[in-house]
């Protein structure tokens, strides 16, 4: 096989196999850092051997067997004495390299639990949020350090360091590689969902930089969400988050103009929405409803239900704003926050007139949590403009423009101000 072609084929196999490989190894060695190193060693071996030998019939099993050989080699070389490595030696000798098929079968039985444990470990509360994000993308998303760095617009060394530190923190805290149970599960799941949605949002409305959206990150988050939904199908909020991301992602093509400028929801060409994603999102929302016992939505499912109201409307005028207000009411009760209130104000303004919306927004202007938040003056500006109070509206748009970190959004706000 020509080297370039082989490298591409190996990259493809790696993207399919790496998470399972790391997860399976982590169960055996009890340490995700070591598991990743072993998996990387196996990848290096593949890069050395496959160009000559061709890709094996069962590449996943090949990588796993190779990683285990490396583990044994390392053990012998280093004669490690601590209990972790004793355990590793025991596990490896108990399941000495069996025929590849058997190994694959044995792994298959547990692969779901292993992957889930890997997600929970990568999103463990002992880690900072930034570390959780980097580790999740790296271990579950199969992204390289460079890809993560590019996605978050930070130097490669920063991500590298973040990942190394995260692995060290996990090892130092002796975080076990296992599934959280009982009351812990809900809390830990929340952290996982938060990490995935954070990745999505960073792609969907970039907080910094030149581009307003970075679809690659959305795609990664969506994939992580779908993986989680397959692994934990009984959790309504997992489906809720997937539904929310699928529906929001369906608009990506419509929310950026030809010059890269943002186009807001109500101005979008709905023909450009991705209907495959919309139908997947609506189906996920139904699953959220069903697994939640019907009727009660969690915060993600509620936001998905709001997004679904927009997705179902063929034109902006058909939007069921009254239902959106009701859903925001429910969301505000479940997770009260000034940002939710601000969104509720927008819905109120659409359903019952700008004066109703403005009344709520005005009650928020003193909230310290919204002090530097550009969307507050932006929403207020919109409502004031609709009420014909152009002078005040212009001032609000100018203020919003001065607060946003994103250059594309700033342009949009200036344009709005000038149009009045």
């Amino acid at each position, binding site marked *: 096989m020509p080297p370039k072609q082989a490298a*591409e*084929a190996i*990259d*493809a*196999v790696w*993207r*399919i196999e790496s*998470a399972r490989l790391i997860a399976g190894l982590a169960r055996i060695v009890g340490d995700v850092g070591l598991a990743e190193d072993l998996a990387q060693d196996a990848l290096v071996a593949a890069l050395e051997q496959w160009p000559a030998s061709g890709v094996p*019939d069962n590449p996943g099993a090949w990588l796993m067997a190779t990683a285990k050989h490396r583990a044994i080699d390392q053990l012998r070389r280093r004669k490690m004495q601590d209990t972790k490595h004793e355990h590793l030696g025991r596990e490896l000798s108990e399941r000495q390299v069996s025929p590849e098929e058997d190994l694959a079968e044995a792994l298959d039985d547990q692969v*779901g639990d292993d*992957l889930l444990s890997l997600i929970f470990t990568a999103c463990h509360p002992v880690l900072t949020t930034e570390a959780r994000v980097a580790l999740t993308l790296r271990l579950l998303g*199969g992204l390289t350090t460079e890809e993560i760095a590019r996605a978050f617009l930070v130097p490669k060394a920063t991500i590298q360091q973040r990942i190394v530190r995260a692995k060290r923190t996990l090892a130092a805290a002796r975080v076990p590689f296992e599934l959280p149970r009982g009351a812990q599960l809900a809390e830990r799941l929340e952290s996982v969902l938060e990490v995935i949605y954070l990745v999505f949002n960073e792609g969907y409305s970039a907080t910094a930089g030149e581009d307003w*959206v970075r*679809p690659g990150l*959305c*795609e990664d988050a*969506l*994939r*992580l*969400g*779908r*993986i989680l939904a*397959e*692994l934990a199908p009984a959790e309504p909020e997992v489906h809720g988050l997937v539904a929310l991301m699928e529906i929001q*992602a*369906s608009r*990506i*093509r419509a929310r950026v103009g030809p010059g890269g400028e943002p186009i807001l929801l109500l101005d979008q060409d709905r023909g450009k929405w*991705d209907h*495959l*994603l919309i139908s*997947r999102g609506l189906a996920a929302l139904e699953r959220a409803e069903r697994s939640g016992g019907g009727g009660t939505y969690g915060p993600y499912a509620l936001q998905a239900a709001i997004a679904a109201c927009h997705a179902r409307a063929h034109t902006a005028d058909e939007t069921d704003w009254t239902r959106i207000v009701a859903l925001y009411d429910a969301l505000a009760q479940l997770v009260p926050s000034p940002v939710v209130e601000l969104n509720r104000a927008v819905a109120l303004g659409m359903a019952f007139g700008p004066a109703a919306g403005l009344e709520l927004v005005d009650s928020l202007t003193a909230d310290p949590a919204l002090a530097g938040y550009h969307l507050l003056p932006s929403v207020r500006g919109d409502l004031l403009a609709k009420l014909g109070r152009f002078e005040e509206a212009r001032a609000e748009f100018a203020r919003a423009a001065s607060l946003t970190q994103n250059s594309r959004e700033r342009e949009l706000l200036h344009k709005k101000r000038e149009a009045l």
Partner: protein
Amino acid sequence: MRFMTIVKTRETGARPSPALIAKIGKLGAEAAQQGKMVGMGGLLPTATGARARLANGKITVTDGPFAEAKEVIGGYAIYEVASKKEAIEWTRRFLEAHVGLWDQELEVEVRQMMDAPEAGC
């Protein structure tokens, strides 16, 4: 990047064995579990379908079966993956699942979908 894989085969009336169906199902589940399979489906025999054709400004509709066709589309899958190579790797696994369980020739067209990739999710 979104790819559609289109499976083409001769229409002989042969039905896949339960073993083959199970193997393909497992592969599909695996791709779904990785969040990479966004849709798939099999097609009923052409006898239940029709063909509509535009030629010289005229539209004609013919009901199935398409007896004269050398090969027909039997099914499709839509993958969301990082590269064409990855779509090919999934397709290779799909074909490999048929080895020893399906004696007809199979061809899969791997095609990148126009609207999804660079522009959005």
